[in-house]
């Protein structure tokens, strides 16, 4: 028995079973409705708190001057305009600044994640003397506030000469300030902001993976590198995805190291942290501009910082949540 499109019609009893299931769900829902109501209110309320700043920024930065002074307008501008964004993006040299920031954040992310994978694998699967101590130190780097050693760390890069090696080679001390080198070096050696957490997450994941697969690969003649690349990594993709997201977000928002090591580079967080004074300069001084315009332009500017990272997060979100659920974060 088929219907018009050639799809077999369901057996009558299947329909009744479906109706039963539906009725059961309705009865369940009826029993739980106070909780569902409370849950909905909570979820909507908290979502509103989180989204409120973004919504305000969005609403304000599209407003033209007359809309701002119009007291009847709360959220939706009557005369939407892109003028604020245009002004800010010329002020920030947005195209170039954005690409520099993306490139630098991307490069440090790749270095950090690559290094974290290697180190975490080393910690998870190899016995060597001093392993516990070294791991403890890595965790310690998370507790120490960066301000404790930022001054001396700055000096290290200002007069870069590890163990007198460069002097011995006849190059002398090298200043790395205002170049991306410090942040790239720190990323490659797992010492950039919060890198210990990446190592911790990856190590937990590797530890929870069954040993049998690796042993099988060893028996089949694969070397250590081959085992890592062809056996461990494909299975670790969810964890790698979530570590990647964390790392990129933290790099993107890391104003502190950017301002310390490369204050003169054209990076979004640096330019934005001094945006109000930049705006006033572009108008020819504080006297030529009112506070409302500065506020509106600042909001447009912070959207320009926020939107790329939001887009990245939304694109990666599916892997992110799934990955973090599987990192084995739970087995402390």
């Amino acid at each position, binding site marked *: 028995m088929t219907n018009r499109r050639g799809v077999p019609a369901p057996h009558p009893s299947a329909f009744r079973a479906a109706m039963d299931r539906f009725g059961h769900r309705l009865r369940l829902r009826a029993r739980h409705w106070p909780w569902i109501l409370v849950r909905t209110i909570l979820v909507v309320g908290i979502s509103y708190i989180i989204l409120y700043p973004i919504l305000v920024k969005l609403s304000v930065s599209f407003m033209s001057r007359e809309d701002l002074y119009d007291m009847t307008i709360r959220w939706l501008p009557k005369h939407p305009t892109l003028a604020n964004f245009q002004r800010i993006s010329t002020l920030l040299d947005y195209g170039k600044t954005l690409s520099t920031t993306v490139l630098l954040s991307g490069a440090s992310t790749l270095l950090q994640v690559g290094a974290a994978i290697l180190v975490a694998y080393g910690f998870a699967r190899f016995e060597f003397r001093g392993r516990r101590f070294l791991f403890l130190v890595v965790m310690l780097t998370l507790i120490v506030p960066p301000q*404790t050693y930022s001054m001396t760390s700055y000096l290290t890069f200002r007069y870069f000469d590890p163990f007198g090696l460069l002097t011995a080679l006849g190059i002398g001390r090298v200043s790395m300030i205002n170049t991306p080198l410090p942040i790239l070096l720190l990323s490659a*050696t797992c010492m950039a902001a919060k890198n210990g957490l990446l190592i911790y997450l990856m190590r937990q994941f590797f530890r929870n993976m069954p040993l049998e697969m690796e042993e099988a690969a060893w028996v089949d003649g694969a070397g250590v590198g081959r085992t890592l690349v062809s056996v461990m990594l494909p299975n670790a993709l969810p964890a790698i995805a979530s570590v990647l997201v964390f790392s990129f977000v933290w790099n993107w928002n890391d104003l502190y190291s950017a301002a310390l090591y490369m204050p003169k580079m054209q990076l979004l967080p640096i330019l934005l942290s001094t*945006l109000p004074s930049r705006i006033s300069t572009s108008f020819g001084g504080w006297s030529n501009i009112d506070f409302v315009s500065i506020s509106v332009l*600042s909001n447009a500017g912070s959207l320009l910082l926020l939107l790329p990272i939001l887009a990245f997060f939304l694109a990666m979100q599916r892997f992110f949540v799934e990955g973090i659920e599987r990192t084995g974060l739970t087995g402390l």
Partner: protein
Amino acid sequence: MKRKRVVSLKQAKARIGYVFVLPTLIGVVLFFGYPMIRSLAFSFSSVGITEKGIALAFAGFGNYQHALFVDANYREIVARSLLDTLINVPVITFFSFFVATLLNQKFRGRFLVRTIFFLPIVMASSALMALDQGDLLQTVMGSAQGFKESAAFGGGNRLAVLYSLIEAGLPRPVVEYIVSATARIFDIVMLSGVQVLIFLAGLQSIPRSVYEAAMIEGSTAWDNYWKITFPMISPLMLTAVLYTVIDSFTAAGNETLAIIQNTAFRNQNFGLSAAMSWLYFLLIGLLVGILALLLTRWVFYYDKP
């Protein structure tokens, strides 16, 4: 005749292990250990900048004494950071645990809601924070001139609420507490992104069979929550508490970090700044140590009875 050196499998594996952790070994020595030791040396010296570079003169505990007993603000600001952390940690921990149980249930639009609840992780930008704080000032000033106060930030709204409550006859401290509590709700939501994630991961990893077995034995949902979910998640309580403590002490907006920063880079008193940050670091270490000790005794481990 040269004898070939025999390397056992264990030794070989240990060597490979060193190769794998080499990046972090280099980093810990060059970019962590060395600067830390230098900063410790700074904290016991008076630091001068000459044309040749940095000149250190040994000063004993002078910087530490200055930080603790001479500086007008340091003690008070550190105490405030500590108090803030102690208030925030339990609130954030329970809030994020609660939110995680919410997100762990099945309901329509769960994926969207999860995405929204993780946005605070993305929006934690210190550049953005600096901009918004500047903006609040401007808004209050703007509203005095009759501009759209509610537009650029809730600051205007908050002021309006404050005034209307005082006019309604409520005592001022009560009103201030209500207003600061609502302000805290915003902060707490924004600070608990990572913790929600930690708890959610934990909740997902509790095997369903445990609940099913309990249901057959006749336990209720309430029993399940307190006798299964809570103990099973307790190791993650430890993780979340420690993360919150560290995050709150080292967050970009922290006042103590600001005073350390200013002492070094604005007042050029590097020795004092180093002493202040070492004291602060010792305080954090002490607190983290105590909390870890207390909580590990209470935590339930499935595989270690």
